[in-house]
């Protein structure tokens, strides 16, 4: 009862969707070392939230709290409205967790491995075969069903781990760096699989070092450093928070001091840097769009041979937000 009240207080987002994951002032300490320093977070149902941070930032500790594997922590943590500390058994029913480092039972085949976990998730015997066939199909592992788990490639093992956590059809997936150590093909396949899970309405909390990957997949991201959340929101919100300048590279046939002065005079252009074969323009995107810049350049008499906006990526945001400090 007490837990339910706390859950109600903690998980109702401001009139939109209920939060699938909710953290309130989460603190995790190991001896004197404080790995997580008061993180608060709400992730609505159906959202894919990307967790970014350098090694030792506190990502895995946060995942362990939500996966009910961290007995000592301060603050509050809820999964689907269930208190992690008070209702861990119920949390395990609605959550699937893939840790950053995990082993597999080398003495089992993929099928036996999934049967093992199907029994552990208390899936009725009559339903097990059908469920396992479904997750094998979804993860494209059917052809490896009778292969020994020990002999699977890293990518296949990751898929098998995903198949495992899908067995009991959880509402929330906690994926701690699922793409780490995968080759480019396996990474792309994993991304497609995660997109399919997003389409199925699963709430996913995912961490990764491959930032471009999260940019393509996540609806929101959170950047964590030294146990603190330094930025949180959609990609655009984070760019706005950072007031990042957009860089546009141009090349013109009639480039010269006269044109340079005219370009500098365009409203919204912050600076122009002359490079060997091009000029790099830094502009405030809220004042001057790329299309307006093009129009301004033409009006200034520039005979453009190239206009190339630099991709504003998460690496830039990440580098700007973090100071490279690790625990």
């Amino acid at each position, binding site marked *: 009862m007490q837990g339910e009240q706390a859950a109600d207080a903690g998980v109702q987002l401001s009139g939109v969707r209920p939060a699938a994951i909710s953290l309130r002032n989460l603190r995790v300490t190991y001896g004197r070392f404080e790995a997580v320093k008061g993180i608060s977070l709400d992730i609505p149902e159906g959202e894919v939230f990307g967790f970014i941070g350098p090694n030792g930032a506190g990502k895995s500790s946060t995942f362990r709290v939500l996966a009910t594997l961290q*007995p000592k922590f301060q603050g509050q943590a809820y999964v689907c409205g269930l208190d992690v500390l008070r209702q861990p*058994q119920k949390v395990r*029913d609605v959550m699937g967790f893939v840790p950053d480092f995990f082993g597999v039972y080398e*003495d089992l085949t993929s099928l036996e491995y999934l049967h093992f976990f199907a*029994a*552990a998730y208390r899936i009725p015997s009559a339903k097990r075969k059908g469920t396992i066939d479904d997750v094998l199909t979804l993860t494209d592992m059917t052809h490896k069903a009778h292969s020994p788990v020990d002999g699977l490639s890293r990518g296949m093992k990751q898929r098998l781990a995903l198949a495992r956590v899908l067995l009991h059809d959880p509402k929330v997936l906690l994926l701690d760096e699922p793409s780490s150590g995968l080759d480019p093909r396996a990474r792309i396949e994993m991304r497609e699989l995660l997109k399919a899970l997003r389409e199925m309405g699963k709430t996913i909390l995912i961490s990764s070092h491959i930032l471009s990957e999260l940019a393509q997949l996540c609806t929101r991201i959170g950047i964590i450093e030294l146990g603190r959340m330094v930025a949180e929101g959609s990609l655009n919100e984070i760019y706005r928070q950072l007031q990042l300048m957009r860089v546009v590279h141009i090349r013109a046939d009639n480039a010269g001091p006269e044109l340079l002065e005219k370009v500098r005079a365009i409203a919204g252009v912050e600076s122009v840097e002359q490079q060997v074969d091009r000029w790099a323009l830094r502009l405030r995107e809220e004042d001057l769009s790329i299309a307006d810049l093009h129009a301004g350049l033409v009006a200034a008499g520039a005979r453009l041979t190239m206009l190339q906006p630099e991709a504003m990526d998460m690496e830039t945001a990440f580098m700007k937000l973090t100071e490279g400090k690790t625990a």
Partner: protein
Amino acid sequence: MRIPRLVPELPLLRRELTELSARKRTYVVRSLGAMVLLAWVLWVSQNVLSAWQQQQQQRGMWAFGGALGVPAASLMGAGEVLFPRLVPLLFLAVQLLMPSMVCGSITIEKERNTLGTLFVTRLTPLTIVFEKLLSRLVPMLTFLLLTFPMLAFVYSLGGVDQRVLLATIWLILWECLLYASIGLMCSAWYTTTVGAFVASYVLSAVIFTLIRLNPVLVPTPYVIWQLLMGALAGPFGWQSGSIMAGAAVTSFVARAGQEPIRVTFVLTIPAMLTVVFCVMTTRFLLYRRAFVSQSSLLLRAFRMLDGFFQRLNDRAGGVQIIADRESYPDEDPVTWREREKKSMGRARYLIRILVVLEFPTLFVCLMSVMYSVNSNTSSGLTPLWLLAWLLALMIVTVKGSTLISSERTRETLDALLSTPLSGRDILLQKVAGMRRLLLVLATPILTVNLTLVMMTVQSGLGVSLANLNQLLWLLTYAVLSVFSTWTTLQLLAWLAALVGSRARAQARSVFAAVTVALGLAGVSWFVVGQERIFAGQSELRGPLEVTVGNAVRQLFRIDGSLQATQSLLWSMEPRPYGYSTESLEGLYGINFPLLRLFLCLGVVAWHWILLRTLRALVLRRSQWLLGRVDESEWESGAVKSLFSGVGR
């Protein structure tokens, strides 16, 4: 002019010692170990000195000396008696501790994948081996140094030749080197610390057994020391009787009285050569076994055994009792995996292990029965019983302590813990998965017990199955044998699970479980006293004291209920302690066999209660042992206190 560096830099040794000094547990373990060793030394000293004083008093040599009224003069020369009692403790400490300290020296590098980086440095393989050896010798020697003040005290009492003292220190040093080099060799061969740990102790056990058979075959420094002390005590010295030295050796050792250091040095040469051999073998294995993939030695042994039986089966017509089949778990997945997928759980493998264990056991039992007809002794089976028990102890301890830590090491535990299986379920299923193994290990013990019954019946002690009382007595023994064996093995399994579950590494969990099992045996020694252990041989205590004392000691021992059950058979001897049953009854007014039965039942019941309590404790603390959040602990307040004031 540049002075050449006399002492090499030894970077690996420096790193090892720095690592060792940075660990908190180094100091905890060393302090505890030193306390135990010193307590042991003091206890032995006190016993020996009080006995010495009594003897002196009886001889009328009591003299009052010292300002505090301490009978100092009565202790003069007591070093002669105390020294031979204390030094074996130091040798024992080396034999017990050295293998465990060394076995992980190279395997840890393999487990951390750091051995390759050592190879690409300028360190030669021999340097690596020497530095590793030194890195483990230094802590052992510093540990032994703690007891040297005690030796100095003994020396100050008089009666100890200075040359004998030096020879003893020399021999202790070589005992350290011998066991360290054996452990190092195992560490170079095995890929895991657990494998090296088990192998080191198995080799040590082999050395012990060979020493028991004929010490001259295995002239370890300890054997040499015993020879030396025997020679010093004269032809009828207390030690010489136990040493079956050959004639040439005996005549050489007899010169030890005149020139102990020279004799000791010459006798140590085989031990030195063994050390050199082990070190060179380690150097040879270092590269060759550096990158061998981890595979269970047991599994490989089982596969070999499997192949042998397969060929045997093919010749016999191909009868297959238990066929391999594809099966999936129904309700208890953890038990299913332990029983169907692990080498120590599969019925097919276990039956073969049973055959391998039971065949020699039965053979020895039958031989004993044949040779003991009409004789009054069953002592021939004692080593076999001990061997069966030690094997069971070792396997159950290793298996029980690694139930959870093996999952933790292989990083499979988190996946299991994030399922809705409760901690209680996981541990119950894990231990249930061991039951078949326990049955297999219990069988040789029970076979010996049953043989003892047969030997008792035909031994000419007047025991007959036609006598209803005696028949009932034997039946009680048989039932209690089964019950106590099962209880003991279960107790051991749960104890090992309790001790080993929190450990992060398998090796650590095994060390901890073995230490606790041995520690319990040590406690029983301290609590009840040494004399009572050698029941019937004690001149200081009467039969009643010995009987009750033994029962009390059995309460503390992990194998107490097994020992208690064995005592039922001794009760059937017509003259226990050299007294007839009637004279004992007359002496104490107690029916002795009945007393033994009650004491035995009490001990067995106590161990059963211990088992249930331990099991309940482990299950209650299961979530803590596994390391995850537990709602029952929250409700009970155990976790709540941790989070009080957090702002809920």
